[in-house]
């Protein structure tokens, strides 16, 4: 029965990487004391960079707005410590390029004094728009890693009449346990946050998907959700990438999101458990998003576990707190399957940072790539049903359009193919490269098309002007001739008249 159940319900895609979540996931949450200096990047979300509204030397309180949202898709930034603004300058971005980006530096006064908060007393009798407005003002973004601002997503869900909210507690990435910890330690916050999101978008039910490798989280969440029948806890088979929204929607509801549509268009919306907890804090406590739970894990860490840390803390400060056993051979922001490699540890943590991994030499070892033996492991693993080997074969010889014909743009870069490849071919690298090239080519084409259109318009205009000039000249000539003729004709008429 159990076996048959498993056989029928487990999707055919995905991989089972060793999860390495424990023992870090089982260590009690530790509170990271506010460091002396905080670096709050202005771009911790998808969309427009926030605009600083403070000046160097100004005193700020914890939770005070220091940079406001700019544009439709953006999020404000708040101070994560009380203290003095000491600089508005550049720090290294949490990005593989290691390029700098703008950040506000705060010298902490060590007091952690909060700004006066303004909680919403009875949110369920407030208008849904009020929830959305306050979520936007609190700078809440998707904490699963996508960092898409939460409020525009609420508005979209409301507009498209979404009925089902899916709360993503999958956390399928190995090593990470920050969502697990949120669900174990603050299940009431998550459930209340989910109910607030339901209210904001007008959903009638919430499905909380949690992978079955987190039994403690499932138990805690079940207990917290017991009073709310509209919030259903749904254990999921532990399978990567279960936390990917399209796969999660399919497994939980059976709905397959069309390749050219957004999830909301099919009546479901996905939000991460940590995002729900952040919404709870924003509405019930009036606290903006300035802190988060972050997993520090990997073979090079002496005491791996989860830390509750202010945003903008340097990764190096976190390492000093948990201790390093050895110099890490690789640093990763996020999980090992999709995470971003970091060049050094003088990089601040941002809203979307669910974990920092410091791998030792053994974990960081990646075997050299060999030839493709067409074993098809990648096609079996691909959660989108793509043919990675065919796409890679085309990209390798520069046939990007050929790869595009195999629906390269549907690739979600989950890394399953590259993970299972026995020849260790860096398939995701191929696909990211090709997608970038194709986007660049598309942009160039648009630009060329626009230039061509303008040039054609100019040629047409010149032609038209010349034609008009010629016509005008012809007309004038005709008029002159007519005038000349007219000048001549009256004489004749006169003559005739005279003769008559």
């Amino acid at each position, binding site marked *: 029965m159990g076996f048959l159940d498993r056989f029928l319900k487990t999707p055919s895609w995905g991989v089972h990487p060793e999860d390495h979540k424990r023992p870090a996931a089982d260590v009690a949450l530790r509170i990271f004391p506010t460091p002396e200096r905080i670096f709050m990047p202005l771009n911790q979300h998808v969309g427009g960079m926030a605009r600083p509204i403070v000046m160097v030397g100004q005193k700020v309180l914890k939770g005070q707005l220091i940079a406001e949202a700019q544009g439709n898709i953006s999020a404000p930034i708040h101070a994560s410590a009380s203290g003095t603004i000491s600089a508005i300058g550049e720090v290294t971005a949490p990005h593989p390029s290691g390029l700098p980006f703008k950040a506000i530096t705060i010298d902490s006064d060590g007091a952690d004094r909060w700004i006066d908060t303004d909680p919403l007393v009875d949110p369920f009798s407030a208008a849904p728009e009020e929830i959305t407005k306050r979520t936007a003002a609190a700078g809440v973004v998707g904490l699963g890693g996508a960092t898409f601002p939460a409020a525009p997503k609420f508005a979209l869900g409301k507009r498209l009449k979404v009925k089902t909210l899916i709360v993503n507690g999958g956390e399928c990435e190995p090593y990470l346990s920050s969502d697990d910890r949120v669900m174990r330690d603050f299940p009431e916050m998550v459930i209340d946050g989910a109910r607030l999101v339901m209210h904001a978008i007008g959903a009638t039910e919430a499905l909380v998907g949690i992978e079955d490798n987190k039994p403690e989280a499932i138990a805690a969440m079940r207990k917290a959700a017991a009073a709310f029948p509209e919030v259903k806890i749904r254990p999921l088979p532990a399978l990567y990438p279960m936390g990917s929204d399209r796969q999660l929607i399919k497994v939980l509801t059976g709905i397959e999101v069309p390749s050219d549509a957004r999830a909301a268009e099919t009546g479901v919306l996905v939000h991460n458990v940590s995002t729900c907890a952040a919404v709870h804090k924003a509405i019930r406590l009036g606290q903006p998003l300035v802190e988060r739970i972050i997993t520090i894990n990997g073979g090079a860490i002496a005491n791996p576990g989860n830390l509750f840390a202010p945003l903008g803390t340097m990764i190096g400060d976190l390492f000093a707190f948990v201790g390093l056993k050895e110099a890490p051979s*690789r640093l990763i922001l996020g999980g090992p399957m999709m995470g971003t490699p970091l060049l050094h540890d003088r990089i601040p943590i941002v809203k979307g940072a669910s974990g920092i991994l410091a791998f030792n030499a053994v974990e960081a070892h990646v075997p050299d790539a060999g030839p493709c033996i067409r074993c098809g492991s990648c096609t079996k693993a691909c959660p989108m049903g793509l043919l990675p080997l065919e796409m890679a074969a085309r990209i390798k010889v520069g046939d990007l359009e050929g790869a595009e014909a195999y629906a390269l743009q549907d690739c979600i870069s989950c890394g399953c193919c590259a993970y299972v490849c026995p020849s260790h071919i860096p398939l*995701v690298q191929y696909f990211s490269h090709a997608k970038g090239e194709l986007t660049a080519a598309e942009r160039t084409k648009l630009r060329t098309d626009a230039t061509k259109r303008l040039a054609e318009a100019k040629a047409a205009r010149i032609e038209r002007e010349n034609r008009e000039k010629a016509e005008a000249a012809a007309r004038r000539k005709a008029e002159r001739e007519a005038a000349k003729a007219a000048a001549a004709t009256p004489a004749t008429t006169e003559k005739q008249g005279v003769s008559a």
Partner: protein
Amino acid sequence: MSQSYGIAVAAPHTTTSNNPGRIMTLVMLALAPATLYGFWLYGWPAFFLWAITIAAAMSGEAFSLRWQNRSAAPVLQDGSAILTGWLLAVSLPPWAPWWIGVFGGLFATMLGKQAFGGLGQNLFNPAMVARVALLISFPVQMTAWVAPAPMFSAGAPGMLEGLLIVLKGVPHSFDAVTSATMLGFGKTELSRGINLLESLPHAPALSFIGNRPGSLGETAALLILAGGVAMMFLRIITWHIPLSMLAGIAIPAAILHAVDPSRYLDMGAHILSGGAMLGAFFIATDYVTSPNSPRGQLIFGFGCGALTYVIRTWAGYPEGVAFAVLLMNSMTPIIDTYFKPRIYGRDSKGKPLQTTN
């Protein structure tokens, strides 16, 4: 503390412990019982021919790599050349002369594989390319089968004698043991106008435990099957190609045998004879030369089976697995193009699904 962590590499930052060498090793282990049984059944000459063929296949690969100024050792370690030689060896007559093994082994890895660009690049199964080249070039040696003379039994050649048989040819004292396989025998008799109902009682007996003339990989059908099932459990192969290939042979065989038993051999004879089992589990399932999608694999397998039956029944050769597999190999790119798996969020033609809300 500020330290640099080297160059940025693309995600994922973790990978499987699987590798081509492991896959090839497991395939060889799955093939080992049938091969060992074959050694016992046909004696020392079979063992020496096997060793010579593998050595030739490896030399061919090494030579081709050195020719391209590449170091041979790391490539040879993936085991693919050994497996190619091994598969070729178990499809040869067990007492074939040494130069059959040498020619076949060199042909398989040099022209069948490295000429295309090495592992993963070849369109045709290298072992079958070599087997067909041998069959066409040396039809006499390639159809001289011996009746089993189990190792250490009375009349079986000893180790030194076995080596001499492979190197210098079968001495006259052993001539009596050469005979035809069941497929060959039936075909010859049919061509002489003797129908199967009359000829079969005199045919070499068909036996599950393999006590009959044939190649190493042909006679021990049960051990081949066991190896194939083991590979399925280890998830090296799926059921699609083996099952559809056997069905492609069995279905026409069953129908035509029911129609005219005097003209057409029965299903069991077809499945257990020749390279059907070896082909279904070990040859047609070759990753490089078979389609990737499950539907494509079903079509490919059935095509291999049906073509095998057609060649065996109506064409000039008594056995057709090698030809059938090569013909279907050439179809693989076409099958891969037309039978792709459905993409998430798209219909089977690749168009986005309709929005339901």
